[in-house]
């Protein structure tokens, strides 16, 4: 595992994106909050309404607020057209702006309310117009308190901006989420250090601005402000500099397999001369829409997921028919090109300990049905509600003695300790290989297939260079290789690999690299 210090210098891009996003959100929040606060200082109703709305926003968890903008923007496409981005910068900016409103608004309203009435009377008395009173008296006297609010907003926003990763906006959250998923703690620490450091620097500079204004030292606040502007400009410049020519954006959902496959695809495209960019840690629900909208160019999705979630089907016509139907549907409905299947499935399956399976003489679900009445079955919390379970239960007449729910990680422990005799597993999970589990056969084909497919966005669907670079991957990744690669990333010992290393190993296994 690379030490934290080696990771930090590589976070420049993410830092620049993080700075630009946070600064834009705070700037926009100021543009909204300051006039609103002036209005609120002249109307009790506006003050009460705006402050309670801003407080209400604060009660929504930042992660949920970010996620809510995806469906909101999607529905706004009816008004603004299909070009309205639903992922990335725009929704992140909107959510963080809402989040930053409260401290700025509250401090400004409080500052206005606490101005010395004698001074305000004098302002009227010397003949100031309302505007002169605002700019010459109210604004300068409120400025230190407003700056304090902006400081608070900045620290909050820089912290919350790490969550923008989940809606496809690059930020310092990228290493944090990637590290959490692949259990690469150095990556998590590096991301946290960078964003905490950024928050501290911003807080410190804005403190100088605030203090400079309070003590009426022009050089001090102007200097600190200049440093802030310089920092944001540098980040902006670094961003536009790196944005020459659009890169190919590859998505990874929030589990290790997705990180590995994204790197595998990315490295092949880079070898073919493309510039690529990864959007890691995306919520599973947003990836499909993002590819259809070309906000993301390439994803790896699973036939069963699309079959139930997007086609809304509950039947199981068999592996091939399902795949062909999806391929045809994606192209017709979304302009998304299903390039092909990688070769393995990440499906729901039933797994048992090798010794227990041998002892009971179970190798398929038919065998299992015979002994089920004396066994305990374990599943993840949603499994027993899913159509897959109902299909299997009905097809084989499974009738267990006991049913227990476990968090996915503990499911395998339960199997090892004998608290469960058989569990619902994911077929490409590395722990199947690590724990030497037996995956039971499904001769009736009751479990829908979850073939991994490469999906190309409409933007690059016709790019022959991309197609040529990725076609060798089709059918080249077997489930054993995928399991081994997943395990290598998930394990926490000396043999742990990064997703990049695991992708390279996988490429060698598939005979695609030396």
């Amino acid at each position, binding site marked *: 595992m690379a030490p934290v210090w080696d990771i930090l210098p590589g976070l420049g891009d993410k830092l620049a994106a993080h700075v630009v996003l946070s600064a834009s959100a705070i700037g926009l929040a100021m543009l909204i909050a300051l006039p609103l606060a002036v209005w609120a200082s002249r109307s009790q109703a506006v003050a009460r309404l705006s402050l309670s709305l801003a407080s209400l926003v604060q009660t929504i968890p930042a992660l949920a607020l970010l996620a809510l903008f995806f469906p909101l923007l999607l529905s706004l496409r009816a008004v603004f057209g299909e070009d309205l981005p639903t992922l990335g910068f725009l929704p992140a900016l909107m959510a963080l702006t809402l989040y930053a409103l409260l401290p700025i608004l509250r401090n400004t309203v409080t500052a206005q309310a606490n101005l*010395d009435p*004698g*001074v305000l009377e*004098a302002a*009227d*008395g*010397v*003949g*100031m117009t309302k505007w002169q009173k605002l700019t010459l008296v109210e604004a300068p006297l409120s400025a230190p308190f407003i700056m304090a609010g902006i400081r608070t907003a900045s620290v909050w926003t820089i912290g919350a901006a790490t969550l923008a990763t989940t809606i496809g906006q690059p930020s310092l959250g990228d290493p944090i989420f990637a590290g959490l998923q692949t259990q690469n703690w150095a990556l998590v620490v590096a991301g946290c250090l960078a964003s905490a450091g950024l928050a501290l620097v911003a807080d410190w500079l804005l403190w100088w601005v605030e203090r400079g204004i309070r003590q009426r030292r022009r050089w001090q606040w102007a200097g600190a402000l200049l440093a802030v502007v310089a920092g944001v400009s540098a980040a902006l410049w670094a961003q536009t500099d790196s944005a020459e020519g659009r890169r190919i954006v590859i998505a990874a959902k929030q589990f290790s397999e997705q990180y590995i496959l994204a790197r595998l695809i990315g490295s092949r495209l880079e070898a073919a001369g493309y510039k690529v960019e990864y959007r890691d840690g995306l919520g599973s629900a947003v990836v499909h829409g993002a590819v259809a909208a070309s906000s993301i160019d390439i994803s790896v999705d699973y036939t069963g997921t699309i079959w139930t979630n997007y086609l809304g089907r509950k039947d199981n016509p068999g592996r091939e028919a399902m795949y062909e139907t999806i391929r045809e549907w994606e192209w017709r409905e979304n302009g998304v090109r299903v390039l092909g299947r990688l070769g393995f499935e990440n499906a729901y399956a039933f797994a048992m300990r090798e010794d227990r399976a041998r002892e009971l003489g179970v190798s398929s679900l038919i065998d299992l049905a015979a002994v089920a009445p004396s066994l305990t079955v374990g599943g993840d919390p949603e499994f027993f509600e899913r159509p897959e379970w109902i299909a299997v239960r009905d097809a084989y007449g499974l009738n267990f003695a006991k049913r227990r729910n476990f968090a996915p990680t503990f499911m395998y422990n339960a199997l090892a300790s004998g608290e469960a005799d058989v569990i619902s597993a994911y077929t490409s999970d590395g722990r199947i290989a690590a724990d030497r589990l037996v995956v039971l056969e499904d001769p009736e084909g009751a479990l829908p297939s979850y073939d991994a497919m490469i999906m190309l966005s409409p933007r690059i669907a016709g790019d022959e260079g991309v197609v040529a670079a990725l076609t060798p991957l089709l059918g080249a990744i077997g489930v054993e290789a995928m399991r081994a690669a997943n395990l290598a990333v998930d394990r926490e010992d000396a043999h742990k690999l990064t997703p990049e290393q695991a992708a390279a190993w996988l490429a060698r296994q598939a005979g695609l690299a030396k």
Partner: protein
Amino acid sequence: MTNPQPLLVFERAARAYGASVAVAGVDCAIAAGSFVALVGASGSGKSTLLKMVNALVEPTGGRVLFSGEDVTRLAPARLRRRVGYVFQGIGLFPHMNVAQNIAIGPRLTGEKTTPERIADLLRLVELEPGLASRMPDELSGGQRQRVGVARALASAPELLLMDEPFGALDPVTRDALGRKVRELHERLGLTTVMVTHDMAEALLLADRVLVMDQGKLVADTTPRALLAGEGGPVAQRLVAVPRGQAERLAAMERSA
């Protein structure tokens, strides 16, 4: 009416806040060049009447004419620049130094006030020109109110309004600043209206004393006539206070 063209005229001027009446219809004309004291107990409506002149308070009945114009018809900001205003709270702008405070009136109309003019104004209120660069919180209460007077005079006002200007000052400073204002009134040919609850101050500084009680004008006469026992019971009750104090002091002096 002694002057055919009074600078300030109240015509049945009234102000009510909901059901409570602060000023209940005042008729009065003030000639240019006069120093008028507006005296009354707390809540008699004297401050409200004064603030109707520079439109800080809008009348709910009647009119206030300034140079023959209804003040509610004038743009408030422009009206206030023609009227110097000094009040108990002083209201120096804490983020501006002395010079910037004094120059604020002219600055609002885009005029520059030269350092020489600032120095002159400071000397006028007997302050060191060197104070120009100080901040208000570095000054004593008396110095601050002197700056307040200088600020009111900076845009060469036609009328000077003072609302309890010396109320928060110690007696020595209060006496000195009162004399100074009277002197400036003479020297600059000002028209001055001063609100005070202190009848002694009114008698010593003004050449005409208006007494208010429960929103009404109950006396309008000269200090000399008040001391001679004219002006009615309310005015005489107010005059009795300083007179009694003076007599007790004189008696103490005799017995000493």
